[in-house]
């Protein structure tokens, strides 16, 4: 999503579903996975006749309440969305005014960009990578001319006055008629023209007439007074093409004018209580809090970093807000982390930020352990082996560690790995610690939900025995390390000794103080800030997470607010808790209005211009900037608009989405001029040998999923839930069951190249064989993930991830938990 709009978060929020005309739910099952949020879609259905379309490998309770359901082969969603884009462009269903005003459709693309035989320009097969600089726009100045210009100092001002650095080549050339063959619009049209309904059907297994029915329905949301909400979850991200799946649905939403609007948006449904909040806080290898990029080797100074990481202003009317304020946010972060030790003289302690060499994702970290290069692991509420992928590989990686610390209220698959089935404890030399930590209800603190609402919760119970808070453990670890580095020195102690630890109880920092530090304050006056607009790069402000500025102001804890009034009737609830950024409830909401500031649909205004101000939701835009100034709605991108074409290094696998087959696929790629294997997916040492070829011994497509009664693995400790969903099972279709002699309720074994599971066969018409093209039939098998060797009905061979392949998305390395090959047999 960041590649499309500039931010990676659900654009709208749960209650906003009530404002929709239509839902396209793909790779998600909200009726079971998010039932209390999905109620709002039913409200829209019941009160405004909204339609629900569900596309998923499995027929679920979401399908049962949908108006249209289509089964899809796992891992083929890019083909589905590119097909929809093709249909929308071909039939001119797009929202033309929106596309002109709010997307980069009119931008001219450089001659260096091309696409041929399934790969984009700049591809080097030997390194399985692209020279992404070939995916660029054409600029007003020629390259030679720009070269002369850039001998001057083009760096952004160090004062952080918010002036935007313009690309040295000037602004991007545009063609407002959208007719130039090198315009994004025409190139996109050409790119997706291969995804005809027939081709889409052959790849995805969605019958052609069903695809056309969906295309016509969803295309109808391109009318300015209609709006549709796109809903997805890990059913889309868990693929080697995961990021491009999200790109393709985001582009479709831009074309239909559905982004930034109440009732619309691109809505990623997150699976854990605070997965959003602690992504915002950058427990994620490639970012720092507030989605600031992690510096890379070679960016030797803060100036280098500011020169290379933030977006440049690429269009005259682009505010480029994020790009222009990057220095303010980073310096304020350094002041929060390092306090007085971060000074102008030491470049704000820029050197103290670690610079990862290459990908440092989940898969990479466990692979490092597998290769005996990692010594230790802290599992902060995490079931690493159960999460997988390829549980046996993860178990081996943990067995190679010198030490492992598991912090959790209850035993986990990580804390117990050394006695997992198939692991001999006497062969495991890992020292393992289990540190009993508090439950959510034994402490205060805020959870940020999928819709970006940060809601404060209060401590209700005292922990029993010697159970301690997670942050107590972290603080004790820090104080212990600080003492050791003071006593005996060690490697580069500066950031440890210089870390700001200004808490009233250093051994147990109050969560309120941490929340205030995240929000930020003026260091000179001590006042809490109410907006990140006040952050500065001169060392006079601090903010631990700039997007949380406004969450704890001089008026107090905004996340604890509980007034549920809704004066606009649009469900914004601005006084219930607090939503980042700046209590805004719908991101990019400037795009909810036309060039004169009038809502596309007056019944559902996001924000509108009242002659002097933008009113309604908190504007994602300068609140007093008149629409006739013409400033672009997407203030987080250098372009000022949403990206149909994502230039340069925003992705590593293409500026347009292209369908490649999953790593393990039963068929060849049916896209004309297509390529079967993802060109840039990364193969870890020895993993490639564990992938099954097409036409081999593993003919069936498997997909993993979640059910209502469990959440990952922790609920195996909750007796009511274990009773309602007691045992591991496997879903398969009746045809396959008949072919294999498998009776409903009998025990089956499912095998992949990597492992096997055994469970109860659930033979059900909810799974159905797919017909690809004229003759090819593909069976899919559904495997829930919630069982392992810990808690509840713990037993061997009940963990879905024993089967999954050790490979991830080309860009962010999200593992391919969906769409891999297995065989199945009666036990």
């Amino acid at each position, binding site marked *: 999503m960041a590649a499309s709009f500039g931010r990676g978060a659900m654009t709208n929020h749960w209650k906003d579903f009530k404002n929709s005309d239509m839902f396209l739910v793909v790779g998600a099952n909200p009726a079971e996975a998010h039932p209390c949020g999905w109620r709002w879609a039913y409200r829209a259905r019941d009160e405004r006749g909204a339609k629900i379309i569900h596309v998923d490998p499995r027929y679920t309770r979401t399908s049962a309440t949908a108006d249209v359901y289509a089964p899809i082969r796992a891992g083929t969603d890019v083909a589905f969305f590119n097909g929809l884009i093709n249909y929308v462009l071909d039939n001119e269903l797009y929202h033309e005014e929106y596309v002109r005003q709010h997307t980069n459709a009119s931008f001219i693309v450089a001659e260096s960009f091309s696409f041929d035989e399934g790969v984009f320009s700049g591809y080097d097969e030997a390194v399985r990578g692209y020279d992404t600089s070939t995916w660029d726009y054409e600029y007003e100045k020629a390259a030679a001319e720009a070269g002369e210009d850039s001998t001057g100092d083009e760096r952004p001002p160090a004062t952080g006055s918010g002036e935007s650095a313009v690309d040295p080549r000037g602004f991007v050339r545009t063609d407002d008629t959208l007719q130039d063959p090198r315009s994004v619009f025409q190139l996109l049209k050409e790119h997706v023209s291969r995804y005809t309904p027939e081709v889409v059907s052959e790849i995805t297994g969605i019958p052609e007439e069903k695809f056309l029915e969906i295309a016509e329905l969803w295309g109808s949301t391109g009318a300015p007074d209609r709006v549709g909400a796109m809903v997805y979850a890990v059913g889309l991200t868990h693929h080697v093409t995961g990021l491009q799946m999200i790109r393709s649905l985001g582009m479709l939403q831009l074309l239909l004018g559905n982004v930034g609007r109440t009732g619309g948006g691109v809505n990623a449904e997150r699976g854990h209580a605070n997965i959003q909040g602690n992504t915002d806080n950058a427990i994620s290898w490639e970012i720092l809090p507030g989605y600031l990029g992690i510096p890379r080797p070679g960016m030797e100074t803060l100036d280098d970093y500011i020169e290379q990481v933030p977006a440049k202003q690429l269009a005259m009317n682009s505010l480029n807000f994020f790009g222009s304020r990057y220095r303010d946010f980073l310096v304020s972060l350094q002041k929060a982390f390092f306090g007085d030790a971060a000074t102008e003289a030491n470049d704000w302690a820029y050197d103290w930020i670690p610079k*990862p*060499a290459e990908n440092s994702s989940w898969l990479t970290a466990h692979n490092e352990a597998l290769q005996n290069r990692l010594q230790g692991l802290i599992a902060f509420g995490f079931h690493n082996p159960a999460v997988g992928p390829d549980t046996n590989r993860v178990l081996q990686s943990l067995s190679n560690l010198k030490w492992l610390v598991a912090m959790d209220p209850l035993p986990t698959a990580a804390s117990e790995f050394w006695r997992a089935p198939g692991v001999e404890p006497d062969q495991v030399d890992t020292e393992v610690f289990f540190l009993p930590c508090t439950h959510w209800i034994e402490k205060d603190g805020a959870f940020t939900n999928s819709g970006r609402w940060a809601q404060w919760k209060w401590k209700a119970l005292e922990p029993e025995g010697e159970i301690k808070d997670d942050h107590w453990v972290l603080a004790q670890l820090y104080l212990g390390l600080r003492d050791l580095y003071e006593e005996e020195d060690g490697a580069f102690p500066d950031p440890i000794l210089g870390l700001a630890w200004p808490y009233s109880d250093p051994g147990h920092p109050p969560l309120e103080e941490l929340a205030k530090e995240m929000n930020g304050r003026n260091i000179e006056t001590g006042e809490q800030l109410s907006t990140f607009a006040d952050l500065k790069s001169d060392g006079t402000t601090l903010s631990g997470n700039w997007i949380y500025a406004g969450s704890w102001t001089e008026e107090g804890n905004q996340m604890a607010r509980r007034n549920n009034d809704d004066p606009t009737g649009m469900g914004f609830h601005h006084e219930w808790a607090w939503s980042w950024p700046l209590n805004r409830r719908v991101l990019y909401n400037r795009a909810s209005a036309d060039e004169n500031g009038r809502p596309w649909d007056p019944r559902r205004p996001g924000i509108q211009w009242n002659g002097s101000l933008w009113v309604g939701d908190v504007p994602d835009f300068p609140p007093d900037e008149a629409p006739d100034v013409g400033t672009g709605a997407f203030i987080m991108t250098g372009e000022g608009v949403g990206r149909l074409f994502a230039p340069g290094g925003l992705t590593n696998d293409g500026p347009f989405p292209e369908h490649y087959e999953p790593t393990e696929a039963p068929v060849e790629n049916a896209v004309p001029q297509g390529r079967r294997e993802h060109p840039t997916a990364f193969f870890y040492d020895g993993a490639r040998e564990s992938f099954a070829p097409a036409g081999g011994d593993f003919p069936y497509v498997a997909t993993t999923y979640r059910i209502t009664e469990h959440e990952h693995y922790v609920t195996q400790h909750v007796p009511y839930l274990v009773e309602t969903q007691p045992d591991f099972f496997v879903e398969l279709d009746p045809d396959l069951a008949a072919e294999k002699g498998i009776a409903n309720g009998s025990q089956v074994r499912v095998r992949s190249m990597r492992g096997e599971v055994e469970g109860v066969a659930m033979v059900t018409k909810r799974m159905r064989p797919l017909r690809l093209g004229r003759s090819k039939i593909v069976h899919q098998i559904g495997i829930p993930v919630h069982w392992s060797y810990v808690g509840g009905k713990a037993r061997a061979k009940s963990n879905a991830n024993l089967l999954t392949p050790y490979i991830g998305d080309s860009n962010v390395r999200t593992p391919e938990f969906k769409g891999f090959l297995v065989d199945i047999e009666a036990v």
Partner: protein
Amino acid sequence: MPINRRDFLKLTGATATGAAYAAFGFDLAPAYAQARSLKIDRATEVRSVCPYCAVGCSMIAYVTGHQAANTKPTLVHIEGDPDSPINEGTLCPKGASTMQLALGGSAERALRPKYRAPGADEWQDMSWDEALERITRLVKDTRDDTFEETDDDGNTVNRQRGFAFTGGATQSNEEGYLAAKLMRALGTVYIEQQARV
């Protein structure tokens, strides 16, 4: 006076007023005094948020002895918070059973740290002091052993690739922020939570 079932319920639902006394010919007050009171009587309502998925359903925890002197707070009930504009009092099966999770689930909750020595096939109890001392030593030794001030190209990198930090999706923002702050200060680059897995 004939009383059908419905009238009877109506009458018994009223307090022991004169009307009830007249209808039944006897005083119900002592019987009410004997009846068990609601378990949430005298409980404090503490507002919480569901710990499972990311819808963010508000919930009310009913606790007796909350912040009272010389008593241990006791959780008596959890239900959806009707004030929330998100869930309007509803909870799913997971949310509705959070009380069991809060009370320790299937009674496996460890009350003090546990240690499993290399090669051992059992946990042993360990004090916090001992566990923290040992962990701090391991973290420092690993960091010192693997710290890279520069990479092969001579770039300043100041990173440690000796240990990884995974998790955070179940901890609050403030705890997660502290974790990110500490881990980056230690030079950690292998940092991931549940967002992608």
